[in-house]
């Protein structure tokens, strides 16, 4: 069973148990084509596990993941977390993007005008034309991110997954990447899912949010989900939401362990 034209992903009551621990607990949501969704949660909330289930690298204990029916190409594009290439790796951005088109195929690639045209087109779409002929490992974090997005998009997936794409970027590059992804979602009719432990960089561009806490998920628009009552139910204890100057702070409001869960900058989430 697969999905129709205007849905990029349907996650149906997915439960994952690893080593007796429930990592995901009946997670269900749907991503419409052409929208940008943030997958928000602190470390250990289950973001990476959910990504692996969607990519088919991990089978859920119960439930199912439905992907669009695509003939002849891959339904899911993926940009992994914390990606830093060796600066001496003699591969241009253009070569890496081309491998996004047919890197899984066997045989030596013959020069192909259609292949070259498609690569150039997607490099233009992500604004990475100017740096496409440099060694990809020598580009800045933001530039590498664009090349990787092009690599994931060039095969025309219906769903684009990005695992913590903003983690290693400065504020300005992060904003540029978010704007780019929102534009890509609309123009290429892709459902874009971005995982992040901090939602503020995504707030202006995000159509929907999936908020993960202890393996449970709440989904909807930011207004629907990022509310004290919804998040308190999710966390299982009292949570406060403070909005200041267009930013949102989610604070665990309970007694002694009143440690703010957001914003919190963690590195090394697995």
């Amino acid at each position, binding site marked *: 069973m697969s999905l129709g034209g205007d849905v990029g992903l349907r996650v149906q009551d997915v439960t994952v148990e690893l080593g007796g621990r429930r990592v995901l607990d009946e997670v269900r949501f749907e991503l419409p084509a052409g929208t940008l969704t943030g997958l928000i949660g602190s470390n250990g909330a289950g973001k990476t596990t959910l990504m692996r289930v969607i*990519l088919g*690298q991990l089978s859920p204990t119960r439930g199912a993941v439905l992907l669009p029916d695509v003939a002849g190409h*891959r339904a*899911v594009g*993926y940009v*992994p977390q914390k*990606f830093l*290439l060796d600066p001496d*790796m*003699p*591969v*241009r951005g253009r*070569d*890496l993007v081309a*491998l996004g088109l*047919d*890197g*899984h*195929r*066997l*045989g*030596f*690639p013959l020069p192909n005008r259609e292949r070259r045209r498609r690569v150039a087109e997607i490099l233009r779409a992500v604004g990475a034309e100017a740096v496409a*002929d*440099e*060694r990809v490992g*020598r580009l800045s974090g933001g530039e590498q991110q664009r090349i*990787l997005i092009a*690599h994931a998009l060039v095969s025309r997936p219906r769903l684009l997954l990005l695992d913590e794409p903003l983690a290693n970027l400065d504020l300005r590059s992060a904003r540029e990447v978010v704007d780019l992804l929102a534009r890509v979602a609309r123009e290429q009719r892709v459902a874009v899912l971005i995982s992040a432990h901090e939602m503020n960089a995504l707030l202006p561009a995000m159509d929907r949010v999936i908020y993960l806490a202890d393996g449970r998920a709440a989904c909807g628009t930011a207004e629907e989900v990022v509310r004290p009552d919804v998040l308190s139910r999710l966390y299982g204890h009292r949570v406060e939401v403070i909005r200041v100057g267009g930013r949102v702070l989610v604070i665990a409001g309970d007694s002694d362990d009143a440690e703010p869960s957001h914003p919190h900058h963690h590195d090394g989430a697995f």
Partner: protein
Amino acid sequence: MGAVLRAIVEPGFFASPVVRAAVELGGAVTVVAALVGVFTVLRGQSFAAEAVGDIGASGGSSAFLVGAGPLAGFVAFSAAAATVLELIGVQRARGRDVATGIVLGLGFGLTALFLYLASSRESASGATATILFGSIFAIPATALPLVLLLGGTAVLLLAVIYRPLLLVSISPELAAARGISARLVGFAYLLALATAVALAAETIGAILSTALVVGPAASALRLTSRPARALLAAALIGLACTWGGLLLAWDSYYWPPLHHGWPASFFIVALVVLSYLLAGAWTHRPGRGR
């Protein structure tokens, strides 16, 4: 012009059937080694290549014991070494120095044993020099079909796995997201590497074989950022080194000490190192942006 040429190419070079066989055989081996070597450098597996070569040396030397040609021993033992390296997980090459180092030590230990046993026999005199340092002028022309078959198989294998191998080498995560098995691709590549190293060992000796695999490729990768061009450049640089080395070895017959001739392996490796230095100088020449 003719005088200059005669000074560079001492008499008889082009007429000699021994030289002809060495040029053909060395050329074929060099191209295979250079093409495979591009990925050895890309994947940071020079050390693995060295380990495969050292185990191959024990194969070549054991072949003397049973009276077979060294090539069969080189190939069989190199392929076995590749399998062992795969089993201990060399695809995460940079983290597996120790595993590679142990395989390498075992190789030389066995080589020492086999060469000792072989040297006690009349028929295997010169085995040590042949195995360790090669004897390109002594390989019979009849070996060419087998060399072409083995080399052709390695290059074909490389061409088949080219794209997945490139993606796995750049990023195992990106490859995994496309459903590519890094282990399977890595093992297929190690077999191609084992073949290339075995052929190179037959030509310039087990100790120097890694230089022929890694050297021209490393020079080529300094000159270009495009994988396909790097393959072409590596093959051309390799050919220049091997054929240039053969020529110098021929010429050296007229150098002191007279009428002995210096080993071709020395000249080939010296030219490989020179090409690497020149490629570096070219990359960092003044006035070149980035």
